[in-house]
């Protein structure tokens, strides 16, 4: 994968771009097929389409059928990637994913782009804030939300070894690369401690990992030692790492570009409440729909910022001290 992961640390790259590049690169050694629903230019499956036209099938604007076709291909032994926007993959085709893919545990990789509020100007109908929740509830579904381009490419390679359905969440918005492409190894189901700390743990996923790292730096300046954990595999969750953080730091803040209901915050709270109850405060979109706008003001409006994470971290600390 060195040929595609040539991004530099700090360079801004959207994870959808990494997905598209990695898909085309992996297509050389793996005989998977790729489906899209009239969004190849946006989901970036266009790179694979160009390289392997005989293994690319555009299903048109018919996401339910696309997932069913993917299931049939998988039932006949093929590994399949099916792409659309998160809203129309996890949302529109939820029941097809549930009954035709997850129930028979077929080898379909649903690679959804344009997840979250950072879709920006297209607004609420296209800003999927529910997909992690929907996909996480399906038995046997692996759910992955990479934090940067390097992790997105690495995750794509890793899921080829997963026997069964996977949901991969990618974004449209370019964010800074922080993983070293030369050394980073993705392990499905394993969280990553990106910064150590002792007072509070910031558990983040996707684009919020970078913000959590910024928040940790700010908190350090105020004498608060924050651990930062990147949870790129939402399911199966790295419960061991989460519980260790709960035991060692005694307070947790989760951060996700998703509704605070049902996603990472819920997953962490479920684990912590059963295994080591400590305060868990959630940063995310507070049970509302998105709206049109440029990305920076949207992130500000919905509280998806390092400053907001810092605020929650202090609140969590105060609860811990009671």
């Amino acid at each position, binding site marked *: 994968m060195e040929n595609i992961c040539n991004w530099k640390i700090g360079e801004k790259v959207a994870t959808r771009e990494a997905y598209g590049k990695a898909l085309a690169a992996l297509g050389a050694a793996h005989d998977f097929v790729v489906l899209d629903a009239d969004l190849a230019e946006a989901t970036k499956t266009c790179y694979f389409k160009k390289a392997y036209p005989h293994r690319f099938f555009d299903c048109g604007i018919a996401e*339910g059928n696309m997932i069913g076709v993917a299931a*049939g291909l998988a039932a006949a032994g093929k590994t399949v990637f099916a792409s659309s926007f998160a809203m129309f993959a996890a949302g529109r085709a939820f029941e097809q994913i549930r009954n035709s893919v997850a129930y028979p545990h077929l080898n379909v990789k649903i690679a959804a782009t344009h997840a979250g509020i950072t879709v920006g100007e297209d607004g609420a109908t296209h800003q999927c804030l529910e997909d992690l929740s929907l996909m996480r509830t399906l038995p046997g579904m692996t759910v992955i939300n990479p934090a940067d381009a390097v992790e997105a490419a690495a995750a794509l390679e890793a899921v080829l070894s997963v026997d069964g359905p996977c949901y991969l969440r990618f974004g449209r918005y370019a964010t800074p690369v922080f993983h070293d492409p030369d050394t980073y190894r993705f392990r499905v189901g394993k969280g990553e401690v990106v910064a150590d700390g002792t007072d509070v743990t910031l558990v983040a996923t996707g684009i919020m990992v970078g913000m959590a790292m910024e928040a940790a730096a700010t908190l350090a300046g105020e004498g608060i030692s924050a651990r930062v954990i990147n949870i790129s595999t939402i399911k199966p969750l790295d419960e061991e790492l989460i519980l260790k953080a709960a035991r060692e730091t005694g307070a947790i803040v989760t951060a996700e570009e998703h509704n605070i209901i049902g996603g990472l915050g819920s997953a962490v709270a479920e684990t912590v409440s059963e295994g080591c109850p400590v305060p868990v405060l959630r940063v995310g979109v507070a049970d509302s729909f998105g709206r049109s706008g440029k990305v920076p003001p949207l992130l500000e409006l919905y509280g998806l910022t390092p400053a907001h994470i810092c605020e929650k971290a202090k609140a969590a600390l105060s609860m811990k001290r009671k």
Partner: protein
Amino acid sequence: MEADKLALLKHQAARIRLGILDGVHGAGSGHPGGSLSIADILSYLYFEEMRIDPANPTWEDRDRLVLSKGHAAPALYAALAARGYFPTEKLTTLRQVDSFLQGHPDMKHTPGVDMSTGSLGQGISAACGMALAAKVDGRDYRVYAIVGDGESEEGQVWEALMFAARYDLDNLCVVIDWNGLQIDGPVSEIVNPAPYDGKLAGFGCHVVHMDAHDFDSIARAFDEAKTVKGKPTVIIATSVKGKGVSYMENQVKWHGSAPNDQQYAQAVEEIKAQM
């Protein structure tokens, strides 16, 4: 059709009907009407048409059958048992908590079931995927999908047909079981997909008609489908819901209810009289 072959197919169809009754009666629930309407088609598919090996149900080059109208599972199970995929005695375990025979087909646990179905409109898409896989891999197996007439109210059925036509899936043969009844009443009074011919042709499909209870007609339709190149075939199979059990025929109430002991005995007697 030769008399011997016809006798065999009729005999197996009767066995399938008995298996449907055994399953649904044993379970105390299920869908006899739309199971009985496809019994003759399944007899033909499993005993004449399809390239299959019951000893090797996952054989890569086998023909596939996707029961898109998954609620007719009792018919599929009865056909699979009759063909030797598993013992017919198992049919009475249908829908029991410890059985491998789920209320709707489960490919993970029932030998011979090629796709898990039950949520209407989805099986035909999976059948498209299987037919596409054959094209991608250069294999010559065929894929059959049985779709209900009520089921074809689902938009996904038409998405799938457009897809099949776009990708020249001439190895796909869809059968629409046109028995005319759905849960809430006659299909013609709910939201009627018929007339089918013009719609199907317009969607890029080759259209064939079949009398679903006449083996010569069934044979002609499937034979014609195999000659079609460059497009999928859809067979419009005119059938009788509840076919073979007098009091169930053309009765909406037998879409999804099980016979009691007395009704079961009468039904078995009627089917045995046809053997």
